[in-house]
């Protein structure tokens, strides 16, 4: 019931000056993958606009602290279809035996929060808004009938967490006087091109009060963009170009060394 009311309040939040609101921005909305790209630090910041009615309530409730706000920031990279393979021993050799296909899995997923996620967001809310990485993947593997599909989902999360593609950044968001918030999230070097949707949730008592959406656009730039486009649009020309480079470099270098040695 309470959730329903909050949901209604959230919807009403679209109307001006109703419930509390969250508004955010990014230090940069564009990331260029150039030759020297080695990851990028993004500052996500914003403010909470408190509902004036609730402010009075808050005064009286201050003692039990139930009106404390929490902020959850989710950055989700472009979704891709993946196959997770499991090795098993066959004739003494470890080889890929089973696989589970997942139709759409985020290539990057970071959840930054003011406090551990499971303490500030109820499981229902998590499922509804698909906040945690598990929820974000959840739907993709569900259609598979395999009994140990859950194991494959676990493995996907484990591998991607290790490679810093999935990040759980607890207590990463700094909240200033319950009004201003900010977080520094590091995007790794192995980014996929596309739109990285950034969702910011204002959370209170385990439920989402308000949300704000924006996006970071990651694209290859400069020479990298040119090379990548050529490889996919003109593969024959690209293949020939790589040959020419190989031939010129291989021949040129040995010719150069011959001149050096003779002089």
């Amino acid at each position: 019931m309470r959730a329903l009311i909050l949901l209604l309040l959230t919807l009403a939040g679209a109307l001006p000056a109703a419930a509390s609101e969250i508004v955010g921005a990014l230090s940069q909305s564009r990331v260029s993958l150039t030759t020297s790209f080695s990851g990028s630090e993004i500052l996500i910041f914003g403010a909470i606009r408190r509902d004036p009615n609730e402010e009075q309530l808050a005064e009286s409730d201050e003692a039990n602290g139930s009106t404390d706000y929490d902020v959850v920031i989710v950055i989700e990279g472009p979704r891709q279809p993946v196959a997770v393979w499991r090795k098993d021993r066959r004739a003494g050799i470890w080889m890929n035996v089973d696989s589970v296909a997942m139709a759409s899995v985020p290539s990057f997923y970071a959840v930054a929060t003011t406090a551990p996620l499971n303490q500030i967001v109820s499981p229902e809310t998590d499922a509804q808004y698909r906040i945690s990485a598990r929820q974000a993947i959840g739907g993709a593997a569900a259609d598979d009938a395999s009994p140990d599909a859950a194991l494959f989902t676990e493995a996907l999360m484990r591998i991607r967490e290790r490679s810093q593609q999935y990040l759980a950044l607890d207590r990463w968001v700094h909240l200033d006087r319950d009004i201003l918030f900010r977080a520094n999230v590091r995007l790794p070097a192995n980014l996929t091109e596309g739109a990285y949707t950034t969702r910011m949730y204002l959370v209170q008592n385990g439920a989402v009060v308000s949300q704000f959406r924006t996006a970071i656009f990651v694209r290859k730039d400069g020479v990298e963009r040119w090379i990548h486009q050529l490889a996919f649009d003109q593969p024959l020309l690209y293949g020939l170009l790589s040959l020419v480079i190989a031939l010129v470099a291989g021949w040129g270098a040995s010719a150069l060394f011959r001149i050096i040695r003779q002089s």
Partner: protein
Amino acid sequence: MLVYLPIAEISTNILTLLGVGAGVGMLSGMFGVGGGFLITPLLFFIGIPPAVAVATGANQVVASSISGVLAHLRRKTVDLKMGTVLLVGGLIGSTVGIWLFRWLSALGQIDLAVQLSYVLFLGVVGALMLQESLRAWYRTKKTGSGRRKLHQHTWVHALPFKMKFRVSGLYISVIPPLMVGAAVGILSAVMGVGGGFIMVPAMIYLLGMPTKVVVGTSLFQIIFTTAYTTVMHAVTGHSVDIVLAFFLILGGVIGAQLGTQIGLKLKAEQLRILLALLVLAVCVKVALDLLIQPGELYSIRVMGGE
């Protein structure tokens, strides 16, 4: 110093790439081999996706063979006719290999296939080379020379479609050279190697070609086959990384020059024993990866176009 590789889609240290290129280039300069059989597994170890490693490895072989080909052409130690027959086989083999590569990738078994081929071929070739070079070393220490007969008649000479190869002084069927060429073509597509380590012994012992023209002719076949393989990988899989290839080649040419200098100071027999041991070491390393239970049993494959 990091560089972002546009096709492999990862950032790698330039010095690592130059180091891999230089190290392999040095060995190839010392031993006169292409080095593709070392570059591809090394690229796996630094996290380059197998498809990109194999395709880019083929491109690197083109660069490391060109100066050798030109030198041999100038010295006229290339049997162009034999080279062309081997090349026709190579192109057929490469086409089959590319198709095989796509098919195995779709099945998710390409890593296994590449590793198994490495274990098999490096194991056999390394063992043969070691045995041969040890025997040669033993022979030089003991007495003069136990020379091989110039014309040994084997099953090769009984096959039809005979052709005259004047430079090699051979009159044999075109079937064995075509088969040898095709086998090397498949290897170049699946393993990203030139295949010299298998073609040179095959030319000497199977076809009975004179040693003088073997290296030049094999290089002639290798450069065209790997060039074709590179373009085919680029067209069918978009998996050739120019930036990666560039740094490998850059390191490679420098390393090769150093290697040649070092190679001149060592004795040929010792060099061959070293190379055989090196080939066996790579073989054992790849085999252990297959036999020892991996720390992570699961792996992720992103499907469809990048």
